[in-house]
């Protein structure tokens, strides 16, 4: 049980997919304009990660080594299709906001990376907790980045204006703002890590 909890918590800070492994930057850069988008993307990615990790760890003994990547892609694509269709059905606004980036979860490096680096070598239970932790870490990173960007770029948080008279810094709503925020956060986390040593 202790080992499982460790698999779960490592994804949140110690091996955070965005800030430590630096995976999945494409959706992170693209959808982190508002917190709502960030949460939606995080949940969709977590769902896909969870499902694909579990299935990959279950069928790992039946997949020939040579064609494992195509097999992973088929498994991942199944879950992405489920996620996309549910999003279209229950939250069309979010689906329109995220656009092409939901289908693109298929090629998200976090999902593929965890299947290749973890799920194909470990048991179902530890893969489940690994996927959950990684998904949660990704979601938290997205919330942090999109929170900073939404607040600075439009003066709002989850659609509510926080400070009256605050003049939004447009650049943070643009792609350059995403790169800036991610770069500065990466630097900041590395700075904290080096200082602890």
């Amino acid at each position: 049980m202790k080992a499982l909890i460790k698999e779960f918590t490592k994804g949140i800070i110690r091996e955070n997919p965005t800030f430590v492994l630096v995976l999945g930057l494409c959706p992170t850069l693209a959808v982190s304009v508002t917190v709502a988008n960030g949460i939606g993307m995080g949940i969709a990615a977590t769902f896909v990660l969870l499902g694909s990790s579990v299935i990959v760890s279950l069928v790992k003994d039946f997949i020939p080594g040579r064609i494992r990547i195509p097999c992973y892609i088929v498994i991942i694509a199944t879950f992405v299709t489920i996620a996309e269709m549910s999003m279209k059905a229950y939250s069309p606004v979010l689906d329109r906001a995220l656009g092409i980036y939901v289908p693109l979860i298929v090629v998200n490096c976090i999902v593929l990376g965890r299947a290749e680096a973890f799920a194909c070598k470990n048991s179902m239970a530890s893969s489940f907790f690994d996927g959950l932790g990684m998904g949660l870490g990704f979601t938290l990173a997205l919330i942090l980045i999109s929170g900073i960007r939404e607040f600075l770029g439009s003066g709002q948080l989850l659609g509510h204006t926080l400070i009256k008279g605050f003049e939004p810094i447009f650049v943070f709503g643009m792609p350059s703002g995403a790169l800036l925020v991610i770069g500065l956060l990466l630097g900041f986390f590395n700075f904290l890590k080096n200082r602890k040593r």
Partner: protein
Amino acid sequence: MRDNLIVSGSPHIHKKASISRIMWTVVLSTIPAGIAGVIIFGWDALWIILVATIAAVSTEWAFESITRHKVTILDGSAVITGILLAYNLPPGVPLWLPAVGAVFSIIVGKAVFGGLGQNIFNPALVGRVFLMASWPKYMTTFPKPFNYDAVTSATPLAMLKEGKIPGHIPYLDLFLGNRGGCIGEVCILALLIGAAILLIKGYITWHIPLTYIFTTALLTYIFGAKQLFQGDWLFHILSGGLILGAFFMATDYVATPLTPKGQVIFGIGCGLITAVIRLWGGYPEGVSYAILMMNAATPFIDRYTRNRIYGT
């Protein structure tokens, strides 16, 4: 620059040039343009310069204290960043704008790369472009010169972009600064005085400024009008931030090539991009973007213009 690096046999003469001496001389050489800006646009301009400078210096101090680096605010480089940023702002902006810009200049433009000597872009221009992208409304509203109320006027280059030919502005007015524009860029006379100080002292060389201005003039002369070779090149030299950019920002030591050959390429590249943006681009003025783009190309230029090692 190159000659200073050749070490010959003794005896050696000690030259008093150091980072702080050069930086404070640059600060001195920008003062005439600042005085001219204050005369032309009133006390608002002075407050903007002071706010930007104080914000830049205190940000540098705060960042270096927090990250436990050596505090280097006395070398004057943060002061010059603040001053140059303020010179690139319109005189009517609210006072928080230069402060935010200076903080961004120092942190994102310089400190995150490792401080002075490590930055890949000119910090003051990083701040200006950030402000331009974030608050375009303030950054493109220019008060009328010698009119201390809030009357605005377009800059000569903006008029040109809108299709109004600013033929009624005499060259002498452009030269002395009687036009809309940023605080430090309008008075060409004062800028040239400062540039002369730097050139005489040997702190900058002619390579970048001259090739930069010449390329811009040539291209605007050839392509500036409806017919070829009819362009008003003198107007293009005297308006906008070309002189300020060419002498004070394109000559930044850190972010420009080391060899004279590289500096000539740098200057020509800046002139090319400036002329292209002015004549065909979406913005009326392209000096800051031109210099930043060439800053990004600097390591590349340096690699291909490396001096031959003696004896090989």
